[in-house]
Every structure is written in structure tokens, then in C-alpha cells.
């Protein structure tokens, strides 16, 4: 899933205060937490309230798109809804915001979210954790299926570093200690009887594979 975080209302109002009629568009695709029609409607209500408090006059409507990363779906869904609209607020990920700007270049589309990472649901209560950085040279085969690029805060290939203590990373995120990826790799490879893989010296990584903009051409 693509994990997103709603932007603060004040930041969004900063974008929209230059406009009069705004369409708030959700996305039913892979964003999490869900950012579909219901959330678009909630966003409209919140923005109306905040605008009123600040004395800003704004007309807001809610809509949604099945998959904002698909140009055809975006066009066929929204083209008929844009009469009188002078800006779009998208609740999709960063890709969706860019698609909307490309499909409807006459209208500015603003992001309603900060897009954070690609993750999987790790804990109860809808908490997601990053699992893949799409780094272009997968080493999961050597690491017992645990990714050190996404899960080690330093993306080390020969970890753990000296910051691993009691299986936890030296870096805290939101006040919480998280697992040291290399400690997990050590444990997993030990279980599998493959500590030779742990001990293996991994050469320098080709980080150029991560330099954008990346394209599927020639892949």
C-alpha cells in the first residue's frame, strides 16, 4: 500500500485561498489510510469550517476516482465534473496529484496528503511499516526475506551497525524504538542454518539504480 498522511488544514487552506470553486477528489486505489469519497466529503466539511473561521470564501465539492494513477480513468471520471471549478485538491498519493496536473493542465491540482512510503500492515490498528524502497537490486534472497534497504535506518548492506542494542535500532521514530533489520536478518538466517549468508561481505551498492526519474523503458 502507499502510505499517506493528511496535510494540516492550514497548509491546504494556504493553497486554496487563491481560488473560489474547488473540487476535493478522493482516490479509491492503494492509498492508506483510505482516502475515497467519504474522506473527500469529510475534508470538504473540515475545510468549510476552517475557511469560515478565517473569513475565506470557498465553494467546495467532493468526488472520487477509482485509480488516480490511470490517466484514462481520471479523464473519464472527472471531465464532466469540472464545470466552474478553478482548482482541485487531490487526496491521492504524489503520483495521483501529478497525473491530475497532467490530465487537466488548465487547473492546478494541490496535494491533500504527504506521501510517506510503500508499506505493509505490520501491527493491529492499521499501522503500516515501510518494506520496499524499489531500489532496483533486490537482495531478499540473501537476507532471509528481510529487506535492509527499507528496514535499516542506514540501509546498510553489512549490518548491524554499533547502534543495534537488544535487537532495536538506535534511531527512534515518533518516540518508538523499532526493530534492527540486521538483527532480524541474523536471527532468521540462524534459524535457517544460513549464517554463512549473514557473514558474507557485500560489495558497494549501485545506488545509481535509485536515481530518478526512473522509467520502465528497457526493463
Amino acid at each position, binding site marked *: 500500500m502507499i502510505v499517506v498522511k493528511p496535510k494540516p488544514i492550514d497548509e491546504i487552506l494556504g493553497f486554496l485561498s487563491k481560488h473560489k470553486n474547488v473540487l476535493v477528489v478522493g482516490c479509491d486505489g492503494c492509498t492508506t489510510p483510505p482516502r475515497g469519497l467519504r474522506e473527500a466529503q469529510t475534508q470538504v466539511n473540515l475545510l468549510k469550517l476552517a475557511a469560515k473561521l478565517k473569513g475565506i470564501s470557498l465553494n467546495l465539492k467532493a468526488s472520487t476516482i477509482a485509480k488516480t494513477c490511470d490517466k484514462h480513468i481520471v479523464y473519464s471520471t472527472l471531465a464532466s465534473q469540472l464545470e466552474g471549478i478553478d482548482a482541485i485538491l487531490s487526496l491521492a498519493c504524489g503520483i495521483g496529484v501529478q497525473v491530475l496536473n497532467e490530465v487537466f493542465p488548465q487547473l492546478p491540482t494541490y496535494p491533500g496528503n504527504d506521501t510517506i512510503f510503500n508499506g505493509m500492515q505490520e501491527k493491529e490498528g492499521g499501522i503500516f511499516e515501510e518494506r520496499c524502497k524499489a531500489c532496483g537490486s533486490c537482495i531478499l534472497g540473501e537476507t532471509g526475506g528481510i529487506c535492509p534497504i527499507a528496514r535499516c535506518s542506514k540501509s546498510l548492506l553489512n549490518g548491524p*551497525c554499533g547502534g543495534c542494542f537488544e535487537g532495536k535500532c538506535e*534511531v527512534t521514530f515518533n518516540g518508538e524504538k523499532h526493530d534492527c533489520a540486521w538483527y532480524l536478518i541474523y536471527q532468521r538466517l540462524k534459524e535457517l542454518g544460513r549464517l554463512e549468508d*549473514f557473514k558474507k*561481505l557485500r560489495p*558497494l551498492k549501485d545506488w545509481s539504480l535509485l536515481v530518478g526519474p526512473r522509467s520502465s523503458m528497457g526493463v
Partner: protein
Amino acid sequence: MKGKFTPFSELMKKIAAGEFVYTGELEPHKTTDISETIEWARTLKATGKVTAANVTDNPSSTACISSLVAAYIIQRETGLETIYQLRTADRNRLALVSDVLGAGALGLKNILALTGDHTMLGDNPQSKPVFDLDGTQLIAMIKQMVYEGKDPAGNEIANPPKINVGAAAQPGADPLEMEILKMERKVEAGAEFFQTQVVFDVEVALKFLDEASHLNVPILIGIFPPKNYGQAEYFSKYVPGVTVPDQFLADLKKLSEISDKAERKRKINEYNVEYFSNFIREIKKKPVCKGCHIMAVGYPEVIGPIVERVEKGA
């Protein structure tokens, strides 16, 4: 690049000659004036016992004067050989190659290759962390530069640097097996010596030395004679993987309560000299232990007496 090794530095020449060596630690700060650090280096040099001193690179990810520049100035001003610490946290491979070449040109002879603390733990936590390489890969990179005259991409280096490269180890790691496997990897990369994290408990050091003896790479055990009770307590409470024996803490606490300042200082010095000279005598019995890294930052005057006591016996 296991196996290829020429002793370029005084440190490695002495170890190769079978001498038990002592290294110190110098921590230049966020300043252009390192005269205080130079004074400490002079104190280390004056002991006649310290072969080289580490010069820290952005310790705890706080942005300080370049360790390359500080190591060079210290070496030039005092004649004390330096061990230039180099972290991969802040530099990509181009910058690392540049700095290693710079070190070679400036006559530095030792590098301690480190990954470094995460930049988020430091004084500029919003920085973009680099970690293009890890500390182990940095060892391999330097070895390739020194012994093959090539940079990471295989480009030729005209007049390669002549530098020895060491690595860090943590005797208090849990599980120790994982640490030993990491050290094996560092040896595979070409590590020529190890300097360890601080150890207070001699049993921890001895067990570690036994477990690492098969590596056949010189190990310098790290110690930290504390200037006061607060420093010892800090290690005990806040430094992961470092255990301070209860008796040590209790003794130091008692000494810290002496009201006369000069007397308190004298007693704490005496205690450190007694405790750590016994400690060193024990670790010296292990053949893989080739030295002691005394991290008396801001307390260099304790080093001479400790070493003299070790040499005197009892």
C-alpha cells in the same frame, strides 16, 4: 582484501614488532581553534607511552571541525601519530576517496573506518543521511585504493596512499556471536586492527578476546578512566552494551564524596591507575590483544601513570 598488509604507520610497525601499544583519543569540537586539543595531544605525546591518538569524526553525529584537518594539524604540531576516524554517515564514495587521498598526501598513516551514528541522533537531525557505504565497505574501499591503486569503480589512482586501516568492535555486544561474525566480515574486507568500544568489566574483555582470537588481527581494547562518578554513571546508564561493575560505581561514588577538591582528584586518579592497570595486565595475557585504547577525553594526564603501573608490575 584479506591478507594484503604492509605496516605503514608507527602503530602497525610496533604491533608487528610484538610491542603492546597504547592509543589515546582526541575529540576536536565545533570550532576553528583546536589549541586545547593540541595541548591534550602534547600531554599524550609527553607520556612517551602513547603511540597514536584517534581523532574523532563528527562524534555522535554532531558537526565538528573536519577530522582530516584536525588529525593533520595535531600530527604536525605535536609529532604524535594520529588515527584519522572516518565515517560513512556524511560522505558518499567520491568524498571518501577524496579524503583518503587527502590523508595520504598529508602524511596520515592510520584510518579507523566507521559507519557512524545515524545523523538523526546528532545536532543537525534534519540532514540527508548518506551511508553510500557502510564501515565494512569503507575498509574494503581503502584497501583497494592502497594495495591495488584503484577507486571503487576501478579507476586508476596515480600514486596511491600508504595508509593502514582499522575497524571498530563491541565486546559488550549481545549476542556476541553476531559481533564476531561481523568482525570476520571486517577481516574479510581487510581490517588490519580493531579498536573496541569501552569496556569496564575485565571479564567481558577476556571473554571477547577468547571469542575473537581466531581472527588473528590485532585487537586494542578500549577503556575509559572516568574523571568523576558522573562519567561512570553515564556509561552505566546510557551507553548501550557497556556494563560498569557495581563495585567500580560504588567505589567511585564514595571517592566523589571527598569534599577537598585536590584530594578528591588525587584519590580518583589513584583509583583509576590501580583499577585500569590491573585490567590491562589481565587483557595483555591474551595473545590477540595487542594494545589498549585509552579514551581519556579531557583527562590525558591519567594515561602515563596507568601505563607506568602496568609496566612496573604489581
